[in-house]
């Protein structure tokens, strides 16, 4: 099928639609920063952006923010007072939506952004960056969206390292209770949109991206993926949406 967009562009556009206008949104480095800028430029002009670098702003930055403490985020920002202030707002429960990334996710929504291999046998373990704020965001935001490129190595039966616990029971703790993170509430990959079953806490496919047969999505998942009986197709992004999105990242630093 011919597509005039890249799959990760649709991932961003679809994810942005989860932001409601006026909400407080916490975004990490990478595509989440693009996602919030896109939401601000389209349907959510009144949202408030918080980042780990300490930026609090009600308007879009004047240029592409590459990092979460990018100078662009502090030019005409509303407040700039360090990691303590924004992450404390998160911990106080004032954040409506947070976005996390990761290297692996499993059928129970556990996310790994630390590394692959067996941590206890160091020579087998390949480190990525580490949690950063992912665990904190999943612990305290009201809704947590995971953005993950999809392939069978990333969608796995069990993650190698639980950086951010999923909505189920993990390491002997029932997540989502008291001070225990509740994990992602939705996952948007480069192939579709996933939600979690309220009873089994297991991930299922709720939407597929246009032109991607369910069998191909299942083949890019290394566990037996459940499919929603109400499976929908994610809308194709409009020309206008794609133009707006690409204007946020004109050199393609994140979108190429």
């Amino acid at each position: 099928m011919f597509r005039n967009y890249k799959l990760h562009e649709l991932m961003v556009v679809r994810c942005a639609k989860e932001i409601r206008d006026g909400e407080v949104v916490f975004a990490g480095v990478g595509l989440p920063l693009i996602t919030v800028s896109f939401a601000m430029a389209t349907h959510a002009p009144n949202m408030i952006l918080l980042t780990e670098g300490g930026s609090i702003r009600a308007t879009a930055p004047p240029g592409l923010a590459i990092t979460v403490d990018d100078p662009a985020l502090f030019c005409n920002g509303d407040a700039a007072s360090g990691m303590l202030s924004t992450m404390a707002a998160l911990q106080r429960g004032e954040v409506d939506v947070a976005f996390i990334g990761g290297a692996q996710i499993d059928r129970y929504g556990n996310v790994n952004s630390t590394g692959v291999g067996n941590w206890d046998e160091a020579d087998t373990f390949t480190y990525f960056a580490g949690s950063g704020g992912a665990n904190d965001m999943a612990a305290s935001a009201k809704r947590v969206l995971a953005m993950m490129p999809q392939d069978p190595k990333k969608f796995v039966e069990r993650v190698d390292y639980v950086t951010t616990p999923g909505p189920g029971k993990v390491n002997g703790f029932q997540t989502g209770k008291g001070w225990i993170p509740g994990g992602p509430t939705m996952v948007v990959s480069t192939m579709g949109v996933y939600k979690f079953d309220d009873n089994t806490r297991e991930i299922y496919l709720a939407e597929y991206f246009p032109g991607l047969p369910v069998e191909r999505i299942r083949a890019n998942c290394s566990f037996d993926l459940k499919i929603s009986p109400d499976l929908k197709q994610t809308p194709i992004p409009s020309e206008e949406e794609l133009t707006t999105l690409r204007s946020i990242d004109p050199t393609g630093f994140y979108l190429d």
Partner: protein
Amino acid sequence: MAAVKNKTMALKEAVATFVNDGDTVYYGGFQIMVPMAITHELIRQKKRGLKILNASTDAGGLDLLVGAGCVAEMHLAWAMNWYVKAPYAIRRAFQAGRVKRHDLSNFGATSALLAGYLGIPFIPVRGNIGSDMIKHNPRDLKVMEDPFSGEPIPVVRAWRADVAVIHAQRADWLGNVVAWGTRGVTDELGCMAAKRGVIVTAEEIVDPEAVRSDPDRTVVPYFKTLAVVHCPWGAHPSACRGYYGVDIRFCQYQGKYERSEHLLPIFLEQWVYGCEDHEAYIRKYIEKFGKEGLERLRPVLGFKPKMDVDYGYHDPAVWKGVPQYTDENIKA
């Protein structure tokens, strides 16, 4: 308490005097403002066994420090050269057992620094519980019973470095450190928690009168500061707010060396050991990539405060000789 004196010195002298092998070091900056000139000097002086405290660090600064064999332990949430999407030298050092990693979340790290700042032994934090970090990092994270509710609650140990190393926009010769546009992300906490004090490299050294005219911007007061080093481009190739942006191409170039254990020593030889100091490093940069390489990093300026403030005070001397205010009710 440190005496009021001129604390400016050369970086070589500051690192030789105030950083010992085996020290616990708060490593400043975040995705920008990485203390790169200090990183290079720690490598040049072959400091060993450092224990690094940090929330998140980018641009490969810590990757070089670990790759050069200076680090024994790292306590942090995130370490990366974002422009090659990996922490290659850290990865190899962990696999070879040369460095121990103690992972926790960003707010776990911030809270650990806050506890150090407050001078208390530990502090509760949401999150981390239920993750594998709590299994693998008992040095920093524990679960205890909340004495009030009885619920299990994660706590992090207070982090107090022996010495903090940071890069800042400005400092005065007394040691007051000035930052704008985020108060240094976590530098304020990490520096104030440091037991011996702070080494700061700054783009510009100013007079104390300038700092005192706008004390809201002081993130580290002089009594915590050990050494002030004038060091333009001291965060390169990471960015310094209002002075230069991230040198993305150089981060990628450096990352290609970080990637290979055979290439990394060549990078260190050429860009660190082979440069006498940070000025020599910048001269080498200009020789290799031209002045236009640095020109390209100039920021879009024009974001100056539009709100003029005056710290004016009221002089109580005006009350001298003013009679008590009174009326009929009080008299009666």
